[in-house]
């Protein structure tokens, strides 16, 4: 049971930060930015590069996050703002195009092989009954820390209040003297930092390669949409739901249902399960579980 819970926790951590970043930026720029999953890959690769250049990993990671945040702002100003003028669907196709171009860049710069951070190997430690590695625990700590900082930022600072005001009613916020453009770009920067941190967390626990972005694309979107796109903390809840479903599907013995002693679904059905939940949830709640807003047509 503890092992199951820890599996869920680890998977939640995989998805949560990127989903939160996606959700945050959606609240101000109303299109689902697919390129965000590539910002995560960019974060882990940049951290690897900087570590290779001799920086200690924490410094390299921090620097990578800031750089990816800058990249996100740059792309937003040069590409997405212009595309959004033609509609959210066009902007989403545009973010897909950016995703492909970033993939091409990664492929040329880093090659198709998997890489790892240069980390000391630690023995597996037992927490209660679950087996965990130090790096997994680090990733959990990073995610929890980032979510707490984000929550404080959103609900305890002037910047956060301005963000929420702009997200709720841009015109009204502008009338009270909030610089919507500055706020938007701060949120875009923040989403880039969150995605990069999420990517580094993913790479801490295993390997990084150019497929990483596409692999987490749908689970991350499923988490963010379940949480109600635009609701940052909802995305964390969405990630928990997706992680639970995926872990359940691969860990539950379906044998008794069909009269055989043992029957486990192949592991690749885990992700299919999260997509299925997404589709089912959208049938019932077209805008996610934690959103009360209604859009017509």
């Amino acid at each position: 049971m503890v092992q199951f819970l820890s599996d869920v926790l680890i998977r939640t951590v995989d998805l949560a930060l990127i989903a939160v970043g996606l959700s945050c930026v959606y609240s101000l720029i109303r299109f689902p930015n697919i390129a965000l999953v590539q910002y995560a890959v960019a974060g882990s690769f940049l951290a690897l590069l900087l570590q290779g250049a001799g920086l200690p990993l924490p410094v390299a990671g921090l620097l990578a996050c800031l750089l990816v945040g800058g990249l996100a702002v740059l792309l937003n100003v040069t590409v997405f703002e212009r595309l959004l003028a033609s509609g959210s669907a066009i902007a989403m196709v545009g973010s897909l195009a950016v995703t492909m171009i970033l993939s091409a860049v990664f492929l040329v710069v880093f090659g198709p092989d998997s890489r790892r951070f240069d980390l000391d190997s630690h023995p597996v430690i037992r927490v209660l009954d679950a087996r965990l590695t130090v790096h997994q625990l680090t990733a959990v700590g990073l995610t929890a820390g980032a979510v707490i900082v984000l929550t404080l930022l959103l609900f305890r600072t002037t910047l956060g209040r301005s963000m929420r005001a702009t997200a709720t009613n841009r015109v009204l916020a502008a009338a009270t003297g909030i610089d919507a453009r500055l706020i938007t770009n701060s949120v875009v920067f923040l989403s880039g930092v969150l995605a990069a941190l999420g990517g580094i967390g993913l790479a801490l626990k295993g390997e990084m390669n150019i497929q990483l972005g596409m692999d987490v694309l749908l689970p991350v979107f499923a988490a963010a949409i379940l949480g109600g796109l635009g609701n940052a903390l909802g995305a964390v809840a969405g990630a928990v739901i997706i992680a639970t479903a995926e872990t359940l599907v691969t860990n539950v013995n379906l044998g008794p249902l069909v009269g055989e002693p043992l029957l486990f679904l192949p592991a690749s059905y885990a992700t299919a399960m999260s997509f299925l939940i997404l589709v089912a949830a959208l049938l019932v709640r077209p805008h996610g579980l934690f959103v009360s807003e209604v859009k017509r047509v």
Partner: protein
Amino acid sequence: MFEFLIHVSTMACLFGLLALSLNLQVGFAGLVNFGHIALFGCGTYGAAIAFANQWGPLAGLLLGGAAAALLALAFARLGRNLGADYWGIATLSIAEILRTFATNEQWLTGGAQGIHGLPMLFGSLPTPWGPLATLALCAVLLAACWALCQRLVNGRYGLALKLLREEPQLASSLGYDLAALRRTPLVISGLIAAVAGFLFAHYATFVGPDQLYSAETFLIWSMLIVGGLGNNLGAVAGAFLMQFLLAYVPFVKDALGLPSEFVAAMRLTLVGGGLLAFLLWRTQGLIPERIGGRHA
């Protein structure tokens, strides 16, 4: 070289069919479908499953068509109350679920190895004529589908579709049944995509889950955006242009002596870069949509 040209032309015709069918959804009805390759997959697996069970090719075509129509109805049902971007993600998810299913259900689909040995169309003809006959068949079908799509979008029905795309609330207030208006183009384009899939399965003689990666859907998208959304001639032109460009990337690699990663990276750059460049600088594509046009 001549045979290679025939091969690329055949593939261009097949992708032309796919681009036409996606254009019916995206270009005219404004349905942002990111899972289009799954409708194609219904056609390929229809052919493959019929072949594996020795039911004959006609059964394969019917099976593929029926599966594609059902899937299109499922897409349409999902689209009833979803915003365009949510629907795009939902269709992408469904396509990935089906690909996962095709990869894992060995008894039905041959699993990751797929199903080999489907008979070539016109396989009995000698070498230059068999492929040429296939190409001719694909070209004729492409022309027929083009005529069908033109008929569909040029009349009052086409206007209704464009109204659905531009002003759904107005369409609803004028008494159009939006759900039905979404359903028909989806089913028709699903059938066209399934026919393309059936032809492809018998042309490639192999059907596997690798043919159904969502990257293929994005390739069709870039053909549409480059050629011109909402213009059937543009869709076909985009398909031919992209297909020929991509086919000659390996030659560039060899000529310049570049590593093999170059081919994959160059494909991504061409598809993504083409998409982005046209979205930014020439949104209407090479052949713009005709605004106004004939009223039937």
